[in-house]
């Protein structure tokens, strides 16, 4: 997995490439925690290059959503492939997280 952050008009866009699973989840968690520690109020996780996500990855997203919510920030996700989308549906995450089709849609009105 590769994870990196870029700025898009005040929104921290986090690109995740590869897999978000048992072995990579800790690194993703650290990365997102560091952004929040630095005071990021708007975070968009872009999954366009994500291959698959397992429950370990979902755990990272849930923890981030909870912390951002508590701090009054916004957290969005975009670019789910077929399999990731299926996982979001099965787990109910598509209903509790703010999911968008692509980056442009997600940034609109962020």
């Amino acid at each position, binding site marked *: 997995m590769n994870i990196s952050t870029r700025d898009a008009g005040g929104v921290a866009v986090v690109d995740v490439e590869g897999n978000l699973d*048992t072995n990579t989840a800790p690194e993703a968690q650290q990365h997102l925690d560091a952004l929040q520690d630095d005071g990021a109020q708007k975070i968009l996780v872009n999954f366009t290059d994500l*291959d*698959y996500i397992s429950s370990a990855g979902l755990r990272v997203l849930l923890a981030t*959503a909870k912390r951002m919510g508590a701090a009054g920030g916004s957290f969005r996700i975009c670019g789910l492939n077929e399999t990731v989308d*299926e996982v979001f549906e*099965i787990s109910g995450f598509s209903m509790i997280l703010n999911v968008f089709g692509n980056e442009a849609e997600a940034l609109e009105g962020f």
Partner: protein
Amino acid sequence: MIELGSVSLAHVGSVRQVRKKIRLLTMQLIDEPLLATRIATAVSELSRHLVDRGGEPRIEVGLRQAEGRTELEICFTDLEPIPRLPFLDAFFDRVEYDRKEGQKHFIRAWCAIPRAGLVDARAASRLRHMVEQKSRDELVTDLEIKNRELVESFENLRRTTFAKERMESELNIGRDIQMSMLPLEFPAFPDRTEFDVHATLVPAREVGGDFYDFFLVDEDRLCVCIGDVSGKGVPAALFMAVTKTLIKSRASNDSSPASILTHVNNEISRQNEASMFVTIFLGVLDLRSGSFTYTNAGHNPPYIKTRSGDLVRLDKRHGPVIGALEDMVYGEDRVELSVGDTLILYTDGVTEAMNVEGELYEEERLVRSLSQESDTVEALVSSTVEEVWLFEGEAQQADDVTVLVARYLGTGTSERIETLTLSLANRLEEIDRTNQEFNAFAETHGLPTALRRQINLVLDELLNNTISYAFGDEGEHQIEVEIELKAGRLVLTIQDDGIPFNPFVGPEPDTSLSVGEREIGGLGIHLVRKVMDEVSYNRRTDRNVVILVKHLQDPPTDIMERTKES
């Protein structure tokens, strides 16, 4: 020496009579109740001992008079040596042990009777009368005993007749239960071309608790088994019915013969108050590959007759008879059958059949009989049984004769099965390696990307679970992953030797809660369940086995092309 006579100690009642007589006799000689009681007690104690052990004990009573002293002499005789009981020395003044005359063993004991005076002929005659004469009580007792014996022998006669009739009917009921449990219709699987099976059980009149069974565990696996229950009649038949049912129910979700018999043995041993047992040979034939996995629990070793006519004896044994010992772990072996190979299972009613000369049929004759040409499984079963009958001749069949024959005919098609087998250590990094290996496999065989990702997800969830929670210790463990791809489906099997754990029994997570309320626990298994089409868990012997199946919408191009080619 004045002999006063003898008394037979024929039964318990006579002990009381002897005691009474000795006491009265002593009282005639000297009016000392204490001494009389002492002697009478000593005599009756030893008498009781002799009566209890059976035999033909007697006592002889006499008086010895010399130099103005009188001694009472009691001689105990029996056909067996009379034991040296220490209390005799305490009661009598002198005891002489371990004497033998002819067939009779005896001991003599003397007790001095002080101030007894001389016993004249008249007195002696009176005393003799006292010893020899049977009292009214004694006569009545004798009569009662004779009477009781008569009643008993009549009762015995009646009971034997009744029991014999009852046994006959019980044997018949047992036989009915036994036969009703067997598959008797042939051909048993008219629509299956990969195998042919036939069996017969010829019941003996009395002894016998044989059974056989064959059934499809699933679409691709045939289970065959044969067994012999100890005992006969209704108990043996019920035991056989229970065993057969347990096997079938276990085999429905467990295809390992060792695991099936380990489980069945535990079930049976746990509540086996009658201490019955059963010998079983059980095997599972993979109809796609011809691979035959089998476990032998104390049963006669079966044979494989190869297509070319050679006989191979499956003489591996994997544990004791079923029902004898709880917690036995049975092993299993595997043999690869070629198309046309035939399995021959039989019970000891075949090899232990006896002719009028008292000779046994023995395995040698069976081997000779099996070597003969036979076209069909049915013909092989019949010829095997007929040879036994021919040998027995006029002799009565002593035990059930059972033969089961199964021939592997192959799939007849060249459907390809692609397999990826991996063994990984219980470290989380190994999940990555597994997924990479699978990705390469998926690419080679043209699996759709979405399917490949789903399997990645499933492997991550299950392997994470296993590595993180299955092993109670810090030690190194191996996890076996097998991925099987055939037209129509992908089968994923994960095995570990960790603590027994069924991942599919937990409650499903509530996926309708809000971000704040959501817990992540149980989500991984929920995803696996939803993504795959079939999930199952088995505990096989000492392993957790998880099997997952994904139905393929379109057979992978790779497989389709190869099928076309062939």
